[in-house]
C-alpha cells in the first residue's frame, strides 16, 4: 500500500468517490486473500473428511445388489396384483429362474443371497439351495418347478423380502437401525422381540453418556473450584494432575484401568485390606468398569472449561452477597454457581458429545451388555459386512451428535474450546 499525503484542501466529490472505491477494492482484495488462505484447508477437509462421510451416508440408502441382478423379476413382481392373486404369476417365476442362472454364472448370486439374508434369516440358504437344484439347460414352466424345490417360493413373505430388497434406494437400513422393518404388505412394523438390538444400544449409549456426564460434573466442579481459588502457584501445580492424564494416551489409561480393576488387581486388594469386602468382586468387563474408565478419560474435558470460566468470576461478588446477609450456602448457590453456568454447559455438552462416540474404552473394559452404538457400527463393517446397516447406524449417531454440536456452537462457539 502506498502512503498518500493529503493536502489541506478539501477533497472534491470525484476524489472522495475514488477514495471510497479504492478502499472498497482494498477490502475486497483483503477478503480474497483471506479466502485464498482458508481455501487449501477447506478443500482438504472437504476431500478427506466431508466426502468420506457423504459416502457413508450414500451407502446407508444405496442398495444396488438385488436391483442389478434381478431387474426383470422385480418388474414382474411390481406388476403382480398382490391382493387378487395369492402367489405371483408364472412371469415372475420365469424371469426369476432365468436371472438366477445368469447371476450364478456371473458369480454374483452369493452377494444377492447375503443381501437378502440381512432382511430375513434363511433367505441365503433358500436362494443358494434353489440355485443348486436348477441346471443351466432347464426350462419352464417354472412356477410348479420352483414350488417343488422349496415351498417358500409360494409365500408372499418371501417375495416381499425380495421386492423390498430390490429398491435401488432404500430406507430399509434406517428402519433396521431403529429395530423396524416392512412386513409383507409394506407396513412398517417392529422387529420380532429377539431381533431388537439397536434401540437398546442407542438408549444404552445415551444412558452411559448421561452417567459419565453426571459423574464428571460431580467430581469436576469442586476440583475446578479448588484450582481456580487456590493461590496460582499451588493451583498450577495441582493442574498438572488434570493435564497429565489429559495428555496421556487413551489406550494407556484404558490398559491401566484394566490392571487396577481386575479381579486380582489393586483396587480389589485395597478393598480386601480395608475389610470392606470378603471376596474379590468383578469390577471390570461390566458397566462399572466402563463408567469408571470413561469418567476418568473425560474428566479433564469437564474441569478445563469450568476452570476457565471460574477464573473470570470476580470473588468480590460472593463477598458482597455475604456482607448483605446471605449465608455461605446461599451466596454460593445464588451468586457464584449461576456465573459458572457457561462453563458447566460447555463442559457437560462436550463430555456428552464425546461420550456418545466412544468405542475403544467400552470395547476393552466393557462386557457384551455394555457396548455402545459405535461397537455395532464397527462390528457390521468388520464382521457381518452389512455395510448398509453400519452406515445407517452411523447416520443416526451423526445426526444426534450434529444436533448437540449445533447447540454447543450456539451456547459456546466452536472455536472457544479451551485446550489446556
Amino acid at each position, binding site marked *: 500500500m502506498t502512503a498518500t499525503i493529503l493536502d489541506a484542501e478539501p477533497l472534491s466529490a470525484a476524489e472522495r468517490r475514488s477514495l471510497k472505491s479504492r478502499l472498497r477494492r482494498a477490502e475486497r482484495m483483503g477478503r480474497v486473500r483471506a479466502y485464498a488462505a*482458508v481455501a487449501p484447508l477447506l478443500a482438504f477437509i472437504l476431500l*478427506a*473428511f466431508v466426502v468420506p462421510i457423504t459416502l457413508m451416508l450414500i451407502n446407508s440408502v444405496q442398495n444396488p445388489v438385488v436391483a442389478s441382478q434381478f431387474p426383470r423379476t422385480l418388474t414382474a413382481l411390481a406388476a403382480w396384483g398382490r391382493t387378487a392373486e395369492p402367489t405371483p404369476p408364472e412371469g415372475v417365476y420365469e424371469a426369476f429362474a432365468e436371472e438366477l442362472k445368469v447371476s450364478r454364472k456371473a458369480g454374483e448370486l452369493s452377494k444377492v443371497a447375503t443381501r437378502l439374508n440381512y432382511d430375513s434369516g434363511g433367505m441365503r440358504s433358500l436362494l443358494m439351495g434353489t440355485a443348486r437344484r436348477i441346471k443351466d439347460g432347464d426350462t419352464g414352466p417354472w412356477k410348479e418347478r420352483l414350488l417343488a424345490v422349496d415351498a417358500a417360493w409360494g409365500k408372499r413373505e418371501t417375495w416381499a423380502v425380495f421386492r423390498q430388497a430390490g429398491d435401488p434406494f432404500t430406507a430399509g437400513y434406517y428402519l433396521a437401525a431403529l429395530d423396524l422393518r416392512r412386513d409383507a404388505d409394506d407396513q412398517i412394523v417392529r422387529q420380532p422381540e429377539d431381533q431388537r438390538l439397536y434401540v437398546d444400544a442407542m438408549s444404552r449409549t445415551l444412558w452411559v453418556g448421561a452417567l459419565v456426564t453426571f459423574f464428571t460434573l460431580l467430581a469436576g466442579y469442586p476440583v475446578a473450584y479448588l484450582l481456580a481459588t487456590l493461590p496460582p502457584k499451588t493451583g498450577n501445580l495441582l493442574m498438572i494432575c488434570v*493435564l497429565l*492424564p489429559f495428555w496421556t494416551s487413551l489406550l494407556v489409561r484404558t490398559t491401566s484401568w484394566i490392571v487396577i480393576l481386575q479381579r486380582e488387581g489393586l483396587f480389589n486388594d485395597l478393598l480386601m485390606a480395608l475389610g470392606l469386602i470378603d471376596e474379590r468382586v468383578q469390577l471390570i468387563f461390566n458397566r462399572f468398569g466402563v463408567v469408571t474408565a470413561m469418567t476418568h478419560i473425560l474428566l479433564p474435558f469437564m474441569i478445563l472449561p469450568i476452570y476457565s470460566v471460574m477464573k473470570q468470576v470476580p470473588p468480590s461478588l460472593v463477598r458482597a452477597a455475604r456482607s448483605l446477609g446471605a449465608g455461605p450456602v446461599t451466596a454460593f448457590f445464588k451468586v457464584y454457581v449461576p456465573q459458572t453456568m457457561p462453563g458447566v454447559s460447555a463442559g457437560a455438552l462436550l463430555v456428552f458429545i464425546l461420550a456418545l462416540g466412544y468405542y475403544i474404552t467400552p470395547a476393552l473394559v466393557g462386557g457384551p451388555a455394555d457396548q455402545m452404538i*459405535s461397537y455395532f457400527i464397527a462390528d457390521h463393517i468388520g464382521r457381518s459386512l452389512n455395510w448398509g446397516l453400519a452406515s445407517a447406524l452411523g447416520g443416526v449417531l451423526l445426526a444426534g451428535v450434529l444436533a448437540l454440536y449445533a447447540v454447543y456452537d450456539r451456547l459456546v462457539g466452536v472455536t472457544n474450546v479451551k485446550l489446556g
Partner: protein
Amino acid sequence: MTQFPPYVGLGGRAWFYGYRSFCGLVLLFLMAPILVIVPLAFNSQPYFTYPIPGFSLRWFEAIWQDTIWLQAIRNSIVVAVASTVISTSLGTLAAIGLMRKDLPGKGLITAVLVSPMIVPIIITAVGSYFFYSNLGIANSLTAIILSHAALGTPFVVITVTATMVGFDHSLTRAARNLGASPLYAFRTVTIPLVWPGILSGALFAFATSFDEVVTVLFLGGVEQRTVPRQMWSGVREQLSPTILAVATVLIVISVAMLLTLEFLRRRNARMRGLAD
C-alpha cells in the same frame, strides 16, 4: 495446618477439610492410572500386582527385541510426523485467513473446519474406509496419514486462532509501511509472534495422530500397525508386561509434550504482556 479466622466454627472447619479431601480423592483418581502403571512396568516378574518383588528393565528390552513393536513404533512416528506437517501448515494458513473479522461465511467455514474434532471417530473411520477403498489405497500408510491430518487440523486452527486473538495487527502494518513485502512481514513479524500457538497446535495434532487407533483398525493392514493398534490387540488378546513398558514410554512422551506446552503458554503470555 491452615489458619482459620476466628469466626469459622467447627462446621466450617469440617466442611473445609471434607471438601479438600474430596478434591484430593478426585485428583488421586485422575493420577491413579499413571501412578499404578509406571512401577509395574519395571517389575522383574510378569505379574500386575503389588508389592513388586524386584525391579528390572527386561520388559523395555523386550520392546527392542520385538520386530513387531519396532515396526509399530516406526509406523507411528512416520504417520504422526507426516500428518502433523500437513495439518499444521494447512491449519495455520487457514487460521490466518480466518483472522479477518468481516469474512462472509466465516461461521460456516469454521464449523466445517472444526467438525473433525466433534464427529465421532467411528464415523470418520467408516467413511474413510469406504473412501480409501474406492481409491484403492486402503491398507496403506498414505490413507492413515491423510485421515489423521484431517483429525488434527481442528486443534491447529483453534490454538492458532486463540494465539491471534491478542495479536496486534498494527505491527504487520507498521512493517509493511516500512517497506516490507507481505511475505517478509509475515515471516519476520507475524510468525515469531504466533509460533507458540502454531507449535502447540502441532503438538496437539501430533498427539492426536500418535494416540489414534480406530481409523488404523479400519485403514491399516498387518504392515501398517501403529503403537496404539499394537496395544489394542495386546490388551484384547493377552495383557503382557511389555504393554505396560510401552505405556510407560508413552507416558514419558506425554510428560514431555505437557512441559513443552506449558513452556509455550508462559512464553506466549509473557510476549503479550499477560504474565501472571
